[in-house]
């Protein structure tokens, strides 16, 4: 099966090769050959293609079909009239968002929080994976790894509950410690300045371990011969990490980074919403919580769709730009 997959990959790659100049007959012959080859390939892996069908159907049903609903971003949606029948309102929904008093603050908070999150939480899994890779005893490695990714399975509600317990101003553990050490108690939960850091670093704690798994897998696939050769040449551990491990996982890291960039505007709703209170709205009011307040509470589907659309357009632009940059700089990219 792996062979077949490799075959398929090879086939796609071959297609991209620049074509040599040929006469018409030659071309026809080559094309016929190609077609025959495709047919044999298809024939050989019939079963595999059947397995593809659920995935294709999934994307069709849940991703492509719903796209026709995007039109309600430009409509005043009424369930009775349906998606097609609802009245067109043009850019009204989008303008309502742009004209909102808090528009720029929403953009600033959403992008700021996302970028902060990205910059901080991106390197940690890589670091963690590199460290895990250096643990000699396999048993130890497993234990540490399990501990590090266990928090991933805590639900957001519980996580925020834990934050509240640890950081509350009256008798939270952290504040009690601060007070014992002679510092003043600090309202971590109510401070607008502290909110981004609370959000980001609790996320690092929760997800770094889990996200490191993919890098650990990438590290495992590095040819041990490289390490052996380096050792013979007298490379130290650190040198081997820097010159073998790091370059080895770089392509994976770049792909992950591009994917993350594509999510910059899609700030997760639950955690922000749960951590929000009247004192930190200055930094905690992001697009998704605004949509919740203004759109979903009044079940104003047109408005929320318009903002969703706006988000996705920005995300796609970011994704394309970063993808292009990555391709230029390192040669690795999504497409």
């Amino acid at each position, binding site marked *: 099966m792996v062979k077949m997959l490799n075959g398929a990959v090879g086939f796609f790659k071959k297609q991209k090769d620049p074509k040599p100049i040929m006469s018409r007959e030659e071309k026809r012959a080559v094309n016929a050959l190609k077609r025959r080859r495709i047919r044999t390939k298809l024939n050989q892996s019939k079963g595999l293609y059947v397995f593809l069908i*659920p995935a294709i159907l999934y994307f069709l049903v849940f991703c492509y079909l719903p796209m026709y609903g995007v039109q309600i971003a430009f409509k005043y949606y009424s369930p*009775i009239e349906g998606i097609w029948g609802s009245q067109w309102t043009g850019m009204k929904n989008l303008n309502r968002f742009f004209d909102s008093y808090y528009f720029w603050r929403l953009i600033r908070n959403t992008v700021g929080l996302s970028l902060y999150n990205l910059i901080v939480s991106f390197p940690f899994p890589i670091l963690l994976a590199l460290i895990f890779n250096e643990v000699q005893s396999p048993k130890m490695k497993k234990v540490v790894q399990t501990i590090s990714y266990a928090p991933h399975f805590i639900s957001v509600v519980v996580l925020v509950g834990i934050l*509240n317990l640890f950081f509350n*101003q*009256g008798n939270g553990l952290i504040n009690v410690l601060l007070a014992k050490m002679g510092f003043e108690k600090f309202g971590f*939960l*109510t401070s607008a300045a502290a909110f981004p850091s609370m959000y980001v670093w609790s996320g690092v704690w929760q997800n770094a371990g889990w996200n490191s798994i993919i890098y650990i897998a990438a590290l495992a696939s590095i040819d041990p011969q490289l390490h052996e050769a380096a050792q013979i040449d007298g490379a130290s551990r650190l040198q081997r990490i820097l010159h073998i491990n790091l370059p080895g996982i770089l392509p994976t890291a770049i792909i992950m980074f591009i994917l993350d960039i594509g999510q910059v505007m899609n700030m997760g709703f639950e955690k922000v919403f749960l951590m929000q209170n009247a004192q930190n*709205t200055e930094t905690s009011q992001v697009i998704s919580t605004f949509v919740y307040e203004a759109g979903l509470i009044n079940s104003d589907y047109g*408005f929320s769709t318009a903002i969703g659309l706006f988000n996705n357009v920005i995300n796609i632009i970011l994704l394309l730009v970063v993808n292009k940059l990555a391709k230029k700089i390192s040669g690795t990219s999504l497409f």
Partner: protein
Amino acid sequence: MKKLLTMFLAAIMLLGTMAGCGDTASSGASAQAQDTSVNVSQDGMPIVDEPITLHGLVALNANVTDWNEHPALKRMEELTGIHIEWECVPDEGFTEKRNLLFASNTLPDIIVRAKLSPQEEMKYAANGQIIALDDYFDYAPNLKALIDSDEAIRKGITMPDGHVYSCPQLNKTEGNLIHHYWINKTWLDNLGLEEPTTIDELYDVLIAFRDQDPNGNGQKDEIPYCVVGKDYPHRMFYDLLGSWGFGVNGIVNSDYSFSWLDIDDNGKVRFIGREEKFKNMVEFLNKLWEEGLTDKESYSQDQTQVAAKVNADQVGFVARAQNTQWMGAAAENYVQCPVLEGPYGDRALIDVESNVQMTGVAVITSANKYPEATMRWLDYFYSEEGTVLCRLGIEGESYEVVDGKYQLLDNITNNPDGLTLDQALGQWAIYPGGYLPQYVTDEVDQSAAQLPETKAANDVVRDYVVPFEKVPRVKLTEEESIKLGTYAQDIVNYATENVVQFITGEKSLDEWDAYVEELNNMPVEDYIQINQDAYDRWLA
């Protein structure tokens, strides 16, 4: 062979995915009996001469058993001849489910505990998804009688277009309608202090609470002024508004959230957040905050956290709820604080509910083939027997009549299995959680509103309470809702956020004028005007 097996498995998987997208919510509207010619009697039971079946949607309270198995509803079915198949959705996920059904137009026949805001009601009425109930008032003798006898009820449930689209929960019991603020009587006694009657006295008492160790544990862990502000930042000042003369003619709330609007003495809608008097109030609250009298966690804590502090004997003054049940064992420490007189001589308790306690409680949808019968089914709950069935359950099982008075049985009030009152009652009555069509009077009420301590609390404040009839129940038209939707939230957020910053000292009060100026740049006047129109409509 192997190939065949592969194909077969793939086909199965395929079917699995397809089944996943199948439509499961269409049972309501379509599976209706064809024959709608059923005789519906205008009085007397049963309602219909031959049994009919309806589909209902209900938000199920955690303390109430499944409505399909519920004895109170079984009793209703015996009585009325109407069988209702309930889809019970737990309270937490109900709004989403309900909105989804409306958005996809796959409606049940009837929705009970529908929790529709007036805006949603207008919207769905404009869509033609819920029907006007007043067309069927001939089949609602009990509700009709209540409306005819009480102008406030009629005003409270009538929508701007003159129709009634939902059944209300009506309440005549003082104990359910007045929200109180509580002061720690034990602490006052420990320090030998009088109950405060003015804002200045309150300040002195709070200072004493802070400094003189009223709970006697030798630690400075007292929280003089505690607020449940996590989802409701306005609770910081809401209960004291009356002491600065706000809300004495009613607060304008069309959507159960704080609108920053009240009625001034000339019957004009006024934006509270930019008044000079309100600035004075903010100054007072800022003083409490700076002096460490206010709980620094006020804006981030919910009721559970406050209840924990109350039970740890740490709280001096707290505003919350109609009675002290939420405090648990610590309730005995607290009494109603006298209504406080403010610096301008104002003195009122404004946190009261209208006799029309809730609207949007039950609706009949356009999918319903038997609106007359359904109307009568709902109307039954407004009769005394109906409300008793709803609130107290089944005679002999959960309540009895002693000397002409209703009394809950011992197995409910003092459950042998250790169930709370609501849990025990939920097996026989559907009342826990509220939001039901019912007409609550002191005669049929057995809730905490009838406890002697609640009555005592009401006695303290009665002279200063805003009359229940004055509480406006304004309703916006569909166009007004849409118009407000574009900026109302911004205005409310802006005022709330800034006032919070002024109170917590993050913003200096010197910036008050700049705040008001910026506020005036927003469409506040339009906001006021729309609500003024709605208020005038309600008055008429």
